[in-house]
């Protein structure tokens, strides 16, 4: 639409990811490397799945619209499955690498715990996924026009940005939960993550429902947030501890 919408949507979509990066990742170079490698793994998975979809569309009749729509659905599902496969592959790679990193590091023990790796790789997946889905929309938001001539909602850009936050954070939480499940050999966790990812993707296929697809995605995100919090060592006790800590801090300081 204009520069205002461009910057607004860019801040909405990449604000949380940017702040997470600054406060948790940027100081530690090892985390940066794992983040970027995670992003790369996600990109490769998307490349392979889009190759499959591309071949499928070129091999069939381009004029048959229902077939093309079905191929798109198939492509999306295949891509989700491939992303989770690559997440598992990245988990294995990181486990292997961790032993090597432990050997060369100066401290005793591995420099990064599995939980930290889970969080960073999930964030890597999330940032790249958000960027990939948002950049195209952002570049078109710079022009003078807005979506709506063909009956779409005029809140398209805001909705895209908001969905992009959800996608980034969801990937982060899925990464945490997934790695934890792999560590504890709880394979049902992987299946649940896969199902939730498929569900979120199929919600996006409901478009052009734009504004209506946001609440379910956010519901799933909140659910995942809670699960990831508990899975990475948090508990209600810790939250109450936080409150009392603050209270005691204020008491002692006053």
């Amino acid at each position, binding site marked *: *639409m*204009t520069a*205002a*919408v461009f*910057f*607004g*949507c*860019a*801040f*909405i979509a990449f*604000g*949380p990811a*940017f*702040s*997470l990066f*600054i*406060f*948790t990742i940027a100081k530690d170079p090892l985390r940066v490397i794992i983040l970027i490698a995670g992003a790369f793994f996600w990109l490769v998975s998307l490349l392979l799945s889009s190759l499959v979809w591309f071949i499928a569309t070129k091999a069939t009749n381009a004029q048959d*619209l229902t077939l*093309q729509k079905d191929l*798109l659905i198939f492509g999306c599902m295949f891509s989700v499955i491939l992303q989770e496969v690559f997440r598992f592959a990245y988990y294995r790679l990181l486990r292997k690498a961790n032993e090597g990193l432990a050997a060369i590091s100066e401290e005793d*023990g591995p420099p990064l*715990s599995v*939980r930290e790796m889970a969080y960073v790789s999930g964030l890597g997946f999330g940032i790249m996924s958000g960027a990939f889905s948002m950049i*195209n*929309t952002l570049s*078109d*938001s710079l*022009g*003078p*026009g*807005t*979506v*709506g*001539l*063909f*009956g*779409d909602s*005029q809140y*398209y*850009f*805001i909705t895209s*940005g908001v969905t992009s*936050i959800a996608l980034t954070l969801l990937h982060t939480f899925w990464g945490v939960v997934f790695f934890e499940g792999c560590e504890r050999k709880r394979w049902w966790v992987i299946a649940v993550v896969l199902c939730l990812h498929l569900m979120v993707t199929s919600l996006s296929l409901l*478009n*052009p*429902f734009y504004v209506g697809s946001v609440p379910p995605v956010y519901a799933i995100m909140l659910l995942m947030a809670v699960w990831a*919090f508990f899975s*990475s*060592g*948090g*508990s209600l006790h*810790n*939250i109450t*501890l*936080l409150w009392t*800590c603050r209270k005691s801090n204020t008491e002692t300081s006053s």
Partner: protein
Amino acid sequence: MVLESSKWLMFLVCWHFKNVSCNSVAQKIYVELNNTVPCVRLLNATHQIGCQSSISGDTGVIHVLESEADLEWPLSKGPNPPYMVLLESSLFTRSIMMKMKNASSRVAGVVVVLKTSPPEFSPHTTCPNENTGVYTDTYDHNLAHCNTTVWNPQGNGLSYEEFDFPVFSLKEDNETEVIKQCYFDHNRAVNGSGLQYPLCAMQLFSHMYAVTDTATCIRRKNIDFSSSPVIVCDPLGDYNVWASIRPYNNTAFGHKENESVVIAAARLDSRSFFLQDSTGAEGSISGFVTLLAAAQALREVTQEAPPTRNILFAFFQGEVFDYIGSSRMVYDMKNDKFVIDLDNVHSILEIGQVAVRSGANLFLHSDPVSRRNYTVNNEVTNLVNNLQSSTAGLNFSLVEAGFSQPLPPSSLQRFLRARAIPGIVLADHQTAFNNRYYESFYDNAAHLNLTYPSNLSPEEQLEFVTDTAKSLTEVATAVARALYKQAGGNDAQVNNINADPKMVTQMLYGFLVRSNNSWFQAVMAPELKDFLQPNPPQYYVGVARSSHQAKALTSLVQYLLANLTGTATNLTQSQCQKPDELPNESTHMYSYLWVQGMVPPNSTQRESFCVRAAVRLAKAESPAFELEDYTSKEYSTWTESQWKFIKARIFLVASRDLEVLTLGVGVAVLFTSLLVTYFVSTKADVLFSDVREPARAAY
């Protein structure tokens, strides 16, 4: 569920509309308009005319203008300036355009939808080519600047105004329907309440590089910063087509001893406000089709009983823009760069606008100032007598226009500027033009009443002889007979000279309805058959190209003239390309053209053959560019600006509030996430206390 299914339907419709999968956001936003004709910028020695958009396009909320009073909305009352005003052709008048020009901060652009013709409309000036004709203050003060006769009284001069917003034209088709639908859905105020965002808007791109005048833009071209110069404007020009009864050696220029030539002239080009949409049915086509038919009528008799003088048929290009073609030919004649020079010219007969008669008379215009000379006056009277006697047995008569009246705008004026040559201009108007649509896009086949019965196929329409064709055929017969007599031909042969109505109607069909017909295909060269389209050819002279290929109209006239005045030979295609190797053929005297030929009824292969004709192309670029005098008052200095791209698109615009809201939400989200993340990361050891356990266990 109904809403969902309608949204599915919209999605599928969108998909179908784009016929590619609907997964680019730009396709959701913009609808590109493909069939638009822009108004572009032209420059001359002193002015720039035409339209200009800003470099990143001009965007405006669409407003469909219903009447002149409705102009108040975009110009003063409307709350969402700037506006893109959509006009029907009946509202495309000088007063409306001037009001918008004066309020151009609120007008982003104008789009004209061409519909039915108004009763009269001419965007040209009232006195065409007034500064480059022969009637200057020194020649005759009373006749200069149309003081005696205003030739184009309906002229409103819009074509010569400068607008700093883009003006585009659209035809009445699907794209215009989409625009109007968008307007009615989004831009109509409901029940007197304010307009609801999002509003339908249009963006026009037609940024022109050249500014100020020709001298400035040529100077900018010549500043050589790098090896490739930046060209911002190009001079107008093309080629003149000329042919003669007896061929001339094309390498021997200058005066020819004992040669006396009668020149028969017509002009080829015309223009309109939107240059690429030029038609010129009455303005130019009527004249040159008549001359082509006269040339064909003279072919047999000049071979059996050749006249004493030679006849040279000249078709000039670029006459609308200050006589580019004729001024170049006169310049070449004066400077010994043409096969004859001005001393060889005996007299000139020019065919002007001849198709719209008001009565049974056509008029003969002559120049009163040169006729003050006794010899010139005698010659002109002689020519008038030849012409008037040639109408014997035909359904019209030729009358001299008033004696103290100047010549209408015509190529003859440029010859008179150089030398007092006896000449006549043949026209259907006695004083002002009968052409109510002079140099406008309404001067088309309908203006000439060129109607065909509705049940004919295109090929049958080609053969159908219309009334217009019949009347032009008679004019052509009279012209041919008069030329023959003027050239000193045998009087006994005169009544054998008759123009062919079938040829005239085929030419009118090809030049006014569709140029891609079987006859034009047969006379054209195989490599030029792409010039023939399902539309009429373009009549705007266009930019002079550096290649030696003439444009579509010029090439078509060249090949037609070759077909009508030349002879078919037995040469093969390779011989046709190198005829000098043969003993009796010479490219100095003739040009040899390989043409496609007709398709015989029982086969699919064309019978191509080689035509030998004394038809030549002569460069028609203004002498001002040869002499590098870019502020010349003597010659045409018209140039056309260059541009990068020209396009138009429509889309919806959102309200300013929504945009600022988006930015505000974005900034809020950014700050909130920064705060929350900072807070969580400093308290991470408290929140995720489980982390310490494995470390303790490791001990």
